[in-house]
């Protein structure tokens, strides 16, 4: 065996417990979601379903309105990501590039906001959005989510922006580009990895957020996926694990796929922005 093969074998051996811990819930979800209700509560548990039963998903989507919940989640997460990026990118650019008074104080202020748990603010937020008549309005959550995750986004983006040499923009200015044009044509393409990572973090945070969604969105039709899943448990006299597992699968797999597919980009963005 070559030393490289031995090395990778040792690495995989060391990582295997983690792989099991991560993959076990997915395996359970998948196995249960593909089983018929009757097959779940049998004495002899099998991983492999007797038949690949897709009725749970159909039930979930057409009978229980889970499609709507996924759509709501998507709408809010995408909205929050776009809004927070739209504000955080210019803010981070200003912190990284412009000379302005109170820069350090502003950075500290952003940090302090991260020390307050969102739960503490929920009552206040509820009253505020109620005042504006925005209860049950997904836009209320878009605003709240983007505000909560913005400080992190600004910090993350600024440290990434700091790694982009200033010379490049200056060269663009001398080439005749306006500040905006240099930002769009030269600066932004170079910080795409950082922007992508930050946007993804915001998206995932917003996608998974539970407490605020539960509070602000009272209607069944406006609920997000995590809230909907919680409502699926303990509804009637039984817990329909097959349905719940199908729902969790639908809510987590897309995010996992996105993460896995842009993994390289992510590592580059994180290591460049955070470490250097």
């Amino acid at each position, binding site marked *: 065996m070559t030393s490289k093969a031995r090395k990778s074998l040792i690495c995989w051996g060391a990582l295997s417990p983690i792989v099991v811990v991560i993959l076990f819930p997915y395996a359970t979800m998948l196995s249960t979601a593909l089983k018929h209700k009757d097959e779940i509560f049998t004495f002899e548990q099998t991983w492999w379903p007797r038949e690949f039963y897709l009725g749970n998903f159909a039930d979930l989507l057409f009978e229980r309105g889970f499609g709507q919940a996924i759509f709501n989640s998507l709408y809010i997460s995408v909205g929050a990501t776009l809004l927070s990026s739209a504000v955080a990118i210019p803010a981070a650019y200003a912190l990284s590039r412009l000379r302005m008074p109170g820069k350090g104080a502003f950075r500290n202020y952003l940090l302090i906001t991260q020390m307050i748990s969102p739960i503490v603010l929920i009552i206040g937020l509820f009253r505020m959005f109620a005042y504006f008549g925005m209860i049950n309005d997904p836009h209320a959550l878009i605003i709240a989510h983007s505000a909560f995750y913005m400080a992190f986004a600004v910090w993350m983006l600024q440290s990434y922006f700091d790694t982009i*040499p200033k010379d490049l923009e200056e060269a663009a200015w001398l080439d*005749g580009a306006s500040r905006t*044009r240099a930002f769009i044509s030269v600066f932004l393409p170079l910080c795409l990895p950082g922007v992508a990572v930050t946007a993804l973090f915001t998206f995932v945070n917003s996608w998974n957020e539970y407490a605020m969604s539960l509070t602000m969105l009272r209607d069944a039709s406006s609920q997000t996926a995590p809230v909907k899943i919680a409502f699926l448990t303990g509804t009637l006299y039984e817990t329909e694990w097959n349905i719940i597992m199908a729902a969790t699968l639908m809510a987590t797999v897309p995010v996992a796929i996105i993460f896995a597919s842009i993994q390289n980009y992510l590592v580059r963005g994180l290591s460049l922005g955070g470490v250097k």
Partner: protein
Amino acid sequence: MAAIEISKVVKTFGAVKVLDGIDVEVKDREFIVLVGPSGCGKSTLLRMIAGLESISGGQVAIGGRRVNEVGPQERDLAMVFQSYALYPHMTAAENMGFSLKLRNRPAGEVREAVLDAARRLHLTALLDRYPRQLSGGQRQRVAMGRAIVRDPSAFLFDEPLSNLDAKLRAHMRIEIRQLHDALGATSVYVTHDQVEAMTMADRIVVMNAGRIEQVGTPIELFDTPANLFVAGFLGAPTMNFSGGAVVRDDAGELRIALQVSPRTLPLPDTGSLDEGAEIVLGMRPQHIEIVGEDVQDGVIDAEVRAIEQTGCETNLIVAFGDVEWTIQSHHRVLAATGDAIRLRLDPARVHLFDKQTEKRL
């Protein structure tokens, strides 16, 4: 191309004054080199010409137009950065054509201009490569190409050769100068390397601690440095110095007595020195002669401390008293460490400076 006038320019960062009343006039088609030790303000001055630093006081004019309030986009200058600052996500051709694209020139014209610049710089085969696929020297050429592809009022160079190896640097020195002449350009070139300054410039501006020490042609600065700083900064190896005073000998003639040498030296004809004047004597390593026992007048007895043979010249480090001097000879000097040696200073090539003001006498 255009002239650049810098008058009474001041730059302050908070309470720190980094440039203090700078006056330089760069004539049309002139190659001016700003040289000085790091931190002397030469790069700041260049960035102020470029519009990348604000001007705290005074005025910068390009082609007769005051540009203090004009942004770098509107100054019509091209700059080559020390880091080259090539756009990493664009190919060499896109890098070079970017400025023309911004001016909305037709694609055909941009391609033609890029090809023309690439031919001049021998880059034709590399146009489709990204900066990361190019060597240091090639990147440097692309950066040059980006500057020459349009016809700017002036070129600004910010230590463009400092990241290259010695051989390539020597080659690029010549190439940049030839390009300057061929384009009929006006160039301002910043460097801390006095060899670049000496070989490339029409005129050199020597800067130190935010002020201009002297402006002149390379030969003027080399032969008649205005003060101790310029004398010590230009020339390699650097000029040798020793403190001394003007004394009157037994015959009533004025002569120089060096602090650490018992013999006196003939005083060059400066006309203005009186007995007792305290001076600093400067002598270039190339202008010191090694002589035998037969020469008596105006010699210094010294001891050889170290010898460096470079093949075509010999550098001797010699000492007398606590003073160490370097001597450069184009002859093979066969001496060993510890040997006694007699040095003769050519009176016509002695530089004298006032000890207090450090100005040339």
